[in-house]
């Protein structure tokens, strides 16, 4: 089990005596530079591999879904920590001494260490060890991390369980180290790009910096646009860990986390909403851990679409996917997300030559490093490109101003009369049981 432990600022304050903690919760990143998160091969029930088909002679036919060849893993095993090339990372049972590696020589050739890029810093459970050859290696929870040379595509885990189970996949499973009281949970938020506290309705919880006794609402009716509602603790509830209880300014009891009173916002109506963010700087989304996002990109709250990923100057980013008959469709907010395995399989070859006239690769800044769901991939000409959750990212020349999304929902049907064209060449569609098509869509976190 590998979870990102919650690292929070100790803004414990004297709430009951009227003091205030000045800083918002300090959320750690889920991954440091050079460590990515990859979806495991075959993960996602919607993408599980069909059983191999056989011809009349009993020979296995080529799978139309070669990248799903390992089948669907059990629930809770969806994501793995990976190196900067997306290769799965493992821990080694013989690494018993904290901060030291026991894998050198032939072992290190088969299991190359997860190298720390220049400028990366340790934090929380992520530490840096120095190997005997001077190489800096990432360790998580004190365990050095290694890739496996026989893994060739992101998400593979051919090394898992080898050497009598000495090698174990370093899985990413969200946050741990927090035991919220009944009625409070942890959920992943697209808008916050990380893990946040939510109430029993799965609505986002906010922390308040200030004296709750003086937290007079601008208005106390449901029509108030800035209506903050205390997260109510049951009368018989007891403090638990970092969660304490105060008398609410509106009567009853209210939960407090790390010294900060907790509220929900009336503008949030469904799970994942964070419409209260930015309304009042004293209220901050209770973020526990954040995913990496490069400085060149932002998560934009699109009024029509919800959270989508854009460049730092607001231009919508797009990915090109294979057109599947997907149960939740393609074109609506929250519809079936693209499979990272498909994105990896298509790579940067899904848009070359004439395609590049309208679609511009999203190029990393000099010295940028991959992390979290963000990979850096190489194009055929050697240039680099950001990829998110497996898909290479592009801007669209049809978009003229921040917020435009004119590249969304563009389908390219690749049925052809030209028999010299290899529709299924690398970069092309990967579904070969029906007619082939590709489509462009904006990118949801």
């Amino acid at each position: 089990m590998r979870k990102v432990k919650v690292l929070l600022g100790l803004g414990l304050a004297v709430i009951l005596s009227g003091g205030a903690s000045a800083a918002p919760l300090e959320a750690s990143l889920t991954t440091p530079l050079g460590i990515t998160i990859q979806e495991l091969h075959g993960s996602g029930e919607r993408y599980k591999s069909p059983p191999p088909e056989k011809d009349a002679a009993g020979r296995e036919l080529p799978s139309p879904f070669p990248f799903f060849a390992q089948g669907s893993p059990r629930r809770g095993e969806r994501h793995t920590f990976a190196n900067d090339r997306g290769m799965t990372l493992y821990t080694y049972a013989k690494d018993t001494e904290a901060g030291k590696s026991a894998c050198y020589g032939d072992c290190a050739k088969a299991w190359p260490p997860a190298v720390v890029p220049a400028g990366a810093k340790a934090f929380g459970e992520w530490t840096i060890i120095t190997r005997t050859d001077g190489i800096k290696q990432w360790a998580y929870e004190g365990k050095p991390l290694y890739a496996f040379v026989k893994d060739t595509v992101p998400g593979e885990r051919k090394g898992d369980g080898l050497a009598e189970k000495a090698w174990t996949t370093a899985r990413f499973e969200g946050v741990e180290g927090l035991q919220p009281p009944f009625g409070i949970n942890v959920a992943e938020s697209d808008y916050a790009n990380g893990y946040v506290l939510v109430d029993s309705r799965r609505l986002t919880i906010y922390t308040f910096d200030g004296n709750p006794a003086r937290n007079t609402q601008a208005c106390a009716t449901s029509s108030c646009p800035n209506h903050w509602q205390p997260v109510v603790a049951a009368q018989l509830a007891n403090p638990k860990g970092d969660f304490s209880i105060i008398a609410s300014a509106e009567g009853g009891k209210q939960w407090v986390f790390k010294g900060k009173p907790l509220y929900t916002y009336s503008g949030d109506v469904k799970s994942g909403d964070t419409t209260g963010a930015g309304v009042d700087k004293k209220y901050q989304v209770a973020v526990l851990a954040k995913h990496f996002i490069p400085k060149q990109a932002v998560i934009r709250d699109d009024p029509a679409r919800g959270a989508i990923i854009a460049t730092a100057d607001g231009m919508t980013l797009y990915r090109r996917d294979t057109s599947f008959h997907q149960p939740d469709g393609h074109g609506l907010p929250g519809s079936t997300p693209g499979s990272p395995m498909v994105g990896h399989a298509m790579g940067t070859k899904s848009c070359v030559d004439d395609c590049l006239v309208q679609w511009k690769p999203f190029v990393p800044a000099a010295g940028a490093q991959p992390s979290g769901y963000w990979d850096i991939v190489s194009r055929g000409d050697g240039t680099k490109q950001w990829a998110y959750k497996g898909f290479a990212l592009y801007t669209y020349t049809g978009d003229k101003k921040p917020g435009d999304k004119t590249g969304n929902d563009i389908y390219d049907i690749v049925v052809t009369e030209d028999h010299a064209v290899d529709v299924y060449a690398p970069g092309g569609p990967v579904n070969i049981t029906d007619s082939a098509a590709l489509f462009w869509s904006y990118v949801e976190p």
Partner: protein
Amino acid sequence: MPTGNVKRFAWLAGLGAAAVFASGAAMAEQSRSFAVGWFIQAAHSYEGDCPDGHNPLPEEMFREQFRGIGMPDEQIEKILGGLKGGNSDAYTKSQIVNRGRINGKPVNAYTYPMAVPDVGFHEVKGKFAYGFNLDGKADEKSYEDPETGEKGVDNGYWRAIGCNINHRGSAKEIPTEWALHWDNERDKMPAWLVTIKGADLSKDGPVTVQFRKALEHVSRDANGYVRSDSTFRVDPDPRWQASLKGELKGGVINVTEPGEIHLSGDPYGLTELDLRQSRLRLTLNADGTAEGILGGYMPWIRIFFVYGSSGYNSETMIGTDIPGVYYALRKHADAYPDPKTGQNTAISTAWRLALVPAFAIPAEGESD
């Protein structure tokens, strides 16, 4: 998520409806919005419209195609012996999916349809078919609309495909092929919205007909019908918003100035309704619903993809030979020739619409 969005804006819809009601006298315009509940090919089948007969079912088509690529009869029968709809054995499925041949090599029949021999669909030669006279001419390829009597009706799509058993239908009987496609798609594709605007929609007069795409899909009621009076946010993307001028007369709206309509959809159905020179005849029913015929030219490759995107399953379970569809659409395409090849890229079409009342609001929150 879409359900949440609908709830979120339900109160806005109420405000919108109230505003229209209360200020109708003061405002110059009234509006009524609908969600598309059914969108299918407008079929009008009757005895004798296919004098050359109906097209054979795929099994017979497959046999002919395999013979066309020189396959021995013994192997053909072995392949066809494994046909069990969606549960066909792997060998049969693989052979049927890859029954195209390029330089002797098997290729996907749905991506390389012209690598499969053309079995030649029979065409609809009857006098009547739904639609409109799109090109202003009446010739041997034209039909007469069975309801309005309009002459010179252009409907190449019906001519191409209407002799397939699973496309047979009428105003009362939905053809199987489109019933399956639309019924599968409407629960997950963006709802398509139609809004009628006019000075007084209870009287005859000029109207504007808007076609717009929603940010939610339709939902169903307990009977499985598309739910009435739902609220939809309109996608602000101008690509998915069309406005056509028309005339309301006797409870029927006719578009008088044809134009383009673009509405994005989803694979298995139409990836995009991409209609040019669009005409509409829409009857406003007393119960608040509406129904009618939408016609226009459509890039035929988009229609082909409706079939191709469901590939083998569509062929063996619904019963349409997909390369045959490709050849037929290509043959009967009747507009927008490619400047290089001369091949027509669009085909005349007619679609049956069934609309339920709905509220359409801008995504940002103001009522419409």
